[in-house]
């Protein structure tokens, strides 16, 4: 199977189909409308379900309904649309339904801009909706990685009965890169007879299933929250993913960066190496669960003078970086918003500047 040059958005759509997800509900929003445009034709080819809903609010609940009756289902949107789906995400997580959401981030807040940003880190990792819930969040740094993460997202969502969010950005969505679709990432859907509303007659026994999030009894609701928390604790133990770059030898600074921003940082690190300045990077691939230990260990290495969270936001991931490092070294932030993507030269200047201090 050879590589195909594909636009990120289209590759994401194709990846879902290759993962056995034949149900897609979505609403157009720049910079990810190509996913819907691609799937409106492709789902028809594979006999899947495609529906453009009337709003992201409605789409969030179409996903909930479909997930609740046991179907593999996903949607894509961008920042303002994800805000509209946030209530649904709170409900879906509480009701323990598996589903995959993709956020192709754009500039914010408000209507913002249509160019890439990383301003939805808090929303994704701390819960943009109400209540105590977390999403499993993965952040690809290439179109190929987006394909892999989308394909892995479905079995993860089913394993934990929790929504999974893929946090991409406008660059990943729009650019074209060579991609192949791994056969070994295809996982059969789990049996959902225990909880899904797939019709009493379609499973053993005569008991109705109930997909709900209302627990009026406070003792019950507390127990339910403890149950959800246990899942998140398990994710923290078992599912952390990250990439370590140039951490083998000694280095004077540690960059923590994800997604598109990490690619720029990688180039900056390579250029600085040529000048004799060693800088390392931890690139989180799961933003929740965050690679706390990897970041702390990397920042605590002898010789590391500073850790910098470099993100296309006004400083969101930096709080998790600080929390992880626990004072082992000073933590700084650098970022840009609005659709501006820092250049490698800019990053090099920033690192040099921080090391001078």
């Amino acid at each position, binding site marked *: 199977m050879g590589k195909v040059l594909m636009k990120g958005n289209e590759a994401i759509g194709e990846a879902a189909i290759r993962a056995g997800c034949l*149900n897609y509900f979505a609403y157009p929003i720049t910079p990810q409308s190509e996913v819907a445009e691609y799937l409106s034709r492709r789902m028809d080819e594979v006999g899947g379900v495609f529906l453009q809903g009337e709003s992201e609010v409605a789409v969030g609940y179409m996903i*909930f309904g479909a997930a609740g009756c046991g179907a593999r289902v996903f949607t894509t949107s961008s920042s303002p649309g994800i805000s509209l789906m946030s209530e649904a995400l709170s409900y879906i997580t509480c009701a323990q339904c598996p589903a995959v959401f993709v956020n192709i981030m754009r500039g914010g807040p408000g209507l913002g801009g249509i160019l890439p940003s990383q301003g939805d880190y808090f929303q994704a990792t701390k819960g943009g909706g109400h209540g105590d819930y977390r999403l499993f969040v993965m952040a690809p740094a290439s179109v190929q990685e987006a394909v892999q993460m989308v394909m892995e997202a479905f079995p993860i969502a089913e394993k934990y009965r929790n929504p999974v969010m893929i946090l991409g950005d406008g660059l990943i969505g729009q650019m074209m890169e060579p991609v192949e679709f791994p056969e070994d990432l295809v996982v059969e859907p789990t049996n959902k007879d225990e909880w899904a*509303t797939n019709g009493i007659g379609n499973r053993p026994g005569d008991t*109705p299933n109930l*997909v709900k999030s209302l627990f009026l009894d406070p003792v019950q609701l507390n127990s339910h929250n403890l149950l959800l928390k246990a899942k998140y604790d398990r994710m923290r133990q078992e599912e952390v993913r990250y990439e370590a770059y140039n951490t083998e030898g000694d280095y004077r600074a540690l960059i923590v960066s994800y997604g598109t921003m990490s690619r720029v940082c990688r180039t900056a690190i390579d250029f600085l190496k040529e000048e004799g300045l060693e800088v390392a990077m931890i690139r989180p691939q799961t933003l929740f669960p965050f690679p706390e230990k990897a970041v702390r260990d990397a920042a605590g290495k002898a010789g590391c003078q500073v850790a910098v969270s470099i993100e296309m936001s006004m400083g969101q991931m930096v709080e998790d970086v600080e929390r992880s490092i626990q004072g082992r070294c000073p933590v700084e932030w650098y970022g840009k918003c609005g659709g501006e993507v820092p250049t490698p030269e800019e990053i090099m200047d920033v690192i040099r500047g921080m090391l001078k201090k």
Partner: protein
Amino acid sequence: MGKTFKRPEALRDTPTHYCPGCTHGVIHRLVAEVIDELGIRDRTVGIAPVGCAVLAYNYFNVDFQEAAHGRAPAMATGIKRVRPDLMVFTYQGDGDLASIGMGEIIHAANRGEKFTTIFVNNAVYGMTGGQMAPTTMPDQRTTTSPFGRDVQAVGMPVKMAELLAALQTPGYITRQTVIKPKYINRAKKAIHKAFSYQMENRCFSFVEVVSTCPTNWGMTPLDAIEWTENTLLPYYQLGDCKTPEPREEAA
């Protein structure tokens, strides 16, 4: 001699929390009887609203999902699109359907989604304690319209059945009530028709049921029935607003 009148299988043997004089009990029963008669209990999925019927899943004996306020038609769309073999119905009040959920119901009806909506219209927000609804009558006092609904300020009550019937997509749109036995018989036939259209995969079906809320209207159950007959029914007129076009005969 055996029992000739019994609880439908689609209804659980449990007391409900509904108020004396509330029509939810009757409507639940009619829906459950229809589910039994059509033999669809083992593939029916109901969607509960946010409203007095939020606990409907404790009373019906079929698979149920619980929607956020107003979103049931979107959830029903999700279920029906991915599992067209399931019989899907939403059960919603007037705050849920005609206020926050207005967008979802209109679009589901306009797309012709093949599920059934039971719309309980009692001109007030019941569960939250009697606030004004889009369906509250002119000059009707509620906890958020203490001087009576001022149509100059907030407009006339919404006639949902007519609104949905105005859409170009075919559907079965009807308004019924259950305040007297003759109306109950007609309402049951309408609900039966609605679910039958879904079994044929024919169209969207919508049964508005003009209902009483004695507690929040501040009336006795009997006075509430009278108020419904004298004030609600002249405005919310009973009957079929739209039926789907007849099927083309095979050539």
